[in-house]
């Protein structure tokens, strides 16, 4: 351990820590651009300069390591290093570096999507100057399309090279390069090799300014208007932690949220842009039931009455041949699966599971970021909650079938659909129209995975919490409540859960053998098997 004095504050820190990390861990901000914890240190932006006793030059805090000084070299007899992050010299260096950065910058914040979350704006406000001494003409260069839906604006670029290092060190694909020299420096791609990798979208997040923007959300909304849901991506079994930015129930963008156990700082482009799959016009908005072979919209009461009456009728008609089948899918949360399993149990139903979700390709990137080959979010939870469910390919003929929705890109096979059609009563719990809608007798509108609250288990056994974008009026019931409601309706009793937290505590205790709270899960994922 070393003892340092930073801005008059005594700090104990392990040998080898950088000045920058010592500062951040002790609540001292040192502005910086090129430093990113995932990438090689280049020390080129010169923003993080600090003054260190005994060194005439200002030092880059990102690269300067703290170590124990020899006993006779300690400052004031005890300090291994004495650092000032606010001295006049440091302030001048920061101010002038910002002045340099803004010389050729277009100052077009009013039309820049980064405004509001831009480090050039923030640092200039905090450490910069409000007027410019530059009276010359600025360098102006055209915007460029880099591929993978990314637009580069060289005029806004501050040449921190984070984007380049991302493609070299994280995605390992090396599409981005620095071209030209000196003031003509710019980020470029080779003509026949645009940005093209499954992680490309992350360059828009590592860019500290508005020089790399996703065309997907370009000019659609100002960032300060966004509401943000901190949630988990449901597009593959990795479960990358994400922030979903939305406004009035419309999702504008999804960005990764740091979790060093699961996704580091990153997410894949499939997960990033998957929300568009839910923008179809096929949304099921209201409950429906089939009358005289036509689907008509009814109220929730109407659909529940319909289900109760038809279920009773079919049971009566079928007598000894009566049987119930339930399809469970890894697109459901643990809480949904748990209440579904209760329903199955109380109806003595045969449970099938949709298994064909390993349609992807396992991918691992140089620093260890992974994309799963399982394109569903909760296979591990499904395995825990339904221990002996049969493959839905072996679906038998049943009198009544409960079928929850699959997610875009997945369908039941034709033979399974044919088999389903043989049921007398098909109750679908769906967010969107699908092949099932063509013959289902009753359809209950469901939440898709940006809308629901619950827990899922990733491929490494991490139990994580999904949080919804703002609760929409259109969902009278959470999916798990629908299953409870059905159970109550058809059997006359069910568990009494008043909140998802309560369902969570129960499923986690009964099926996983763990004690945990849903609130606790908000802060930290937990390991299904204990430990890592």
């Amino acid at each position: 351990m070393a003892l340092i004095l930073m801005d008059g504050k005594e700090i104990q820190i392990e040998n080898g820590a950088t000045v920058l990390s010592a500062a951040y861990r002790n609540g001292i901000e040192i502005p910086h651009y090129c430093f990113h914890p995932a990438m090689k240190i280049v020390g080129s932006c010169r923003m993080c300069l600090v003054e260190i006793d005994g060194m005439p030059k200002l030092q880059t805090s990102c690269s300067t390591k703290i170590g124990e000084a020899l006993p006779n070299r300690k400052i004031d007899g005890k300090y291994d290093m004495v650092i000032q992050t606010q001295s006049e010299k440091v302030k001048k260096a920061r101010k002038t570096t910002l002045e340099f950065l803004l010389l050729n910058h277009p100052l077009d914040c009013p039309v820049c999507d980064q405004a509001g979350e831009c480090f050039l704006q923030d640092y200039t406000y905090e450490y910069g100057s409000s007027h410019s001494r530059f009276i010359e003409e600025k360098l102006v260069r055209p915007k460029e399309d880099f591929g993978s839906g990314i637009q580069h604006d060289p005029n806004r670029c501050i040449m921190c090279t984070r984007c380049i290092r991302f493609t070299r060190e994280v995605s390992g694909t090396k599409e981005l390069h620095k071209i030209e020299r000196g003031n003509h420096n710019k980020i470029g791609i080779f003509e026949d090799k645009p940005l093209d990798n499954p992680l490309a979208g992350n360059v828009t997040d590592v860019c500290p300014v508005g020089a790399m923007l996703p065309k997907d959300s370009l000019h659609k909304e100002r960032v300060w208007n966004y509401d943000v849901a901190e949630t988990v991506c449901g597009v593959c079994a990795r479960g990358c932690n994400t922030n979903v930015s939305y406004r009035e129930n419309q999702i504008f963008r999804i960005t990764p949220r740091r979790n060093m156990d699961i996704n580091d700082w990153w997410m894949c482009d499939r997960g990033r842009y998957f929300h568009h799959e839910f923008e179809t016009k096929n949304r099921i908005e209201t409950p429906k039931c089939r009358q005289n072979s036509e689907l008509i919209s009814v109220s929730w009461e109407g659909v529940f009455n319909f289900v109760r009456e038809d279920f009773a009728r079919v049971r009566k008609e079928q007598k000894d041949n009566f049987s119930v089948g339930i399809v469970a899918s890894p697109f459901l949360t643990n809480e949904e699966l748990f209440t579904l399993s209760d329903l199955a149990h109380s109806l003595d139903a045969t449970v099938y599971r949709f298994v064909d979700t390993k349609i992807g390709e396992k991918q691992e990137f140089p620093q260890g970021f992974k994309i799963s080959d399982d394109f569903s979010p909760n296979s591990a939870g499904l395995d825990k909650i339904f221990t002996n469910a049969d493959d839905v390919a072996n679906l038998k003929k049943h009198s009544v079938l409960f079928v929850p929705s699959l997610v875009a890109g997945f369908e039941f096979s034709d033979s399974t659909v044919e088999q389903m059609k043989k049921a007398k009563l098909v109750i679908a719990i769906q967010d969107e129209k699908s092949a099932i809608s063509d013959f289902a007798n009753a359809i209950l509108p469901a939440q898709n995975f940006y809308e629901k609250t619950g827990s899922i288990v990733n491929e490494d056994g991490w139990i994580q919490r999904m949080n919804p974008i703002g609760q929409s009026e259109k969902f009278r019931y959470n999916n798990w409540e629908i299953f409870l409601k059905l159970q109550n309706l058809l059997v006359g009793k069910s568990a009494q859960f008043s909140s998802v937290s309560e369902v969570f505590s129960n499923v986690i205790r009964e099926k996983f053998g763990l004690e945990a709270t849903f609130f606790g899960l908000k802060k930290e994922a937990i390991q299904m098997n204990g430990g890592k």
Partner: protein
Amino acid sequence: MTKMLTQFIEQENCHTLDFYLKNGGYNQAKRAILEMSADEIIEIAKQSNLRGRGGAGFPAGMKWSFIPRDIDKPKYLISNADEGEPGTFKDRVLLSKNPHQMFDGMIIAAKAIDCHLAFVYIRGEFKKEAEILENAIAEAKEKNILGKRIFGSDFDFDIVVHRGAGAYICGEETALIESIEGKRGQPRIKPPFPAIEGYLQCPTVVNNVETFAALPPIFENGAQWFVDLGVENSAGTKLFSISGHVKNPGVFEVPMGTPLHDLIYNDEFCGGMKDDIPLKSVIPGGSSSPILTAKEIDGLTMDYDAIQKAGSMLGSGAVIVMNETTDMVQVCYNLARFYAHESCGQCTPCREGTAWLIKILKRFTSGGARQEDIELLLDITDNIGGLVDFSQGSFGKTICPFGEAVSWPVRALVEKFLPEFEKRVQEK
């Protein structure tokens, strides 16, 4: 006057191996390989007080001693033949006229750091010199001076010539290493220094061509002989590239401590000012060294301490002499333009500041300069390269010394020739 690097350069075929061997060449390399230990070699280099001839003047023996011994990574040696500093053209003479002496020195240094593969990084424009080196290597290989088991020992040593592509910054040792690795030539942040992590993250020594070439005579005549050639803190002889308004510009080898006046005015050297127009100023150590006025060079001797005391640096030994007709504003613009063009562009102050400097200086040369531009120029140089205060070291704000290399000369020019700049403001 004793010469140890250029005594034969006027003679025919002086660049050939036969010629070099006839004059006692490679005896010292052979002795180092067959008879000397690494420690003995480093000790002699240290005692000789041979300081790097590339610009910074760092003691060579000390640099070698930083190479870690007890690791199993390969070690590399690089001869810096990028010679890009404006005003400098002395390595070129050695490369074309005396290449074997550099190799001779490289073998000695290789033994000192246990290196088996070395590079000569030669500036792209030196095409002819690169060919001479390639031929010289081929000759040496035939004679078992380079290659496997050199001089019949169990020591392998090879030299590869690597041509640059014409970037001044690739003369900076870490940019040079990046360039040899096949990357964009731009300096690395230090530490780690090349002695710990250089080429391919392995321990690497980079020395200037002239530094290597100085080794064989030192080993032949002894460290003390070399020390005695020069003056205090500046041992040996040094090549000076002298250009500008003199009668007879060229490369001259003289002992350290030789008066600048002699170099400029003696017939043996430059033979006086061209057309006898009086001298106005001198850049003593390459374009990166602050300019000195006629008054400041009065009695100046050419050695590290004396030039530093005068407020400049010996640098690479490139002396640019200017007469009274010289427009110092134009000189300043010219210099700044070179640096703006050659900045690698990674550091914010250097990338943006150099371009800004020339935009402002353009106003001084072509009209439109404002009074406040003078203050602005000085402030920008401070923001890139820091104030010059040799007693306290440099205050540069960039990764490599390029930031200082542009700031110091511009600052010195503006401060020392202020009336010329002010005149431009009035002229409008």
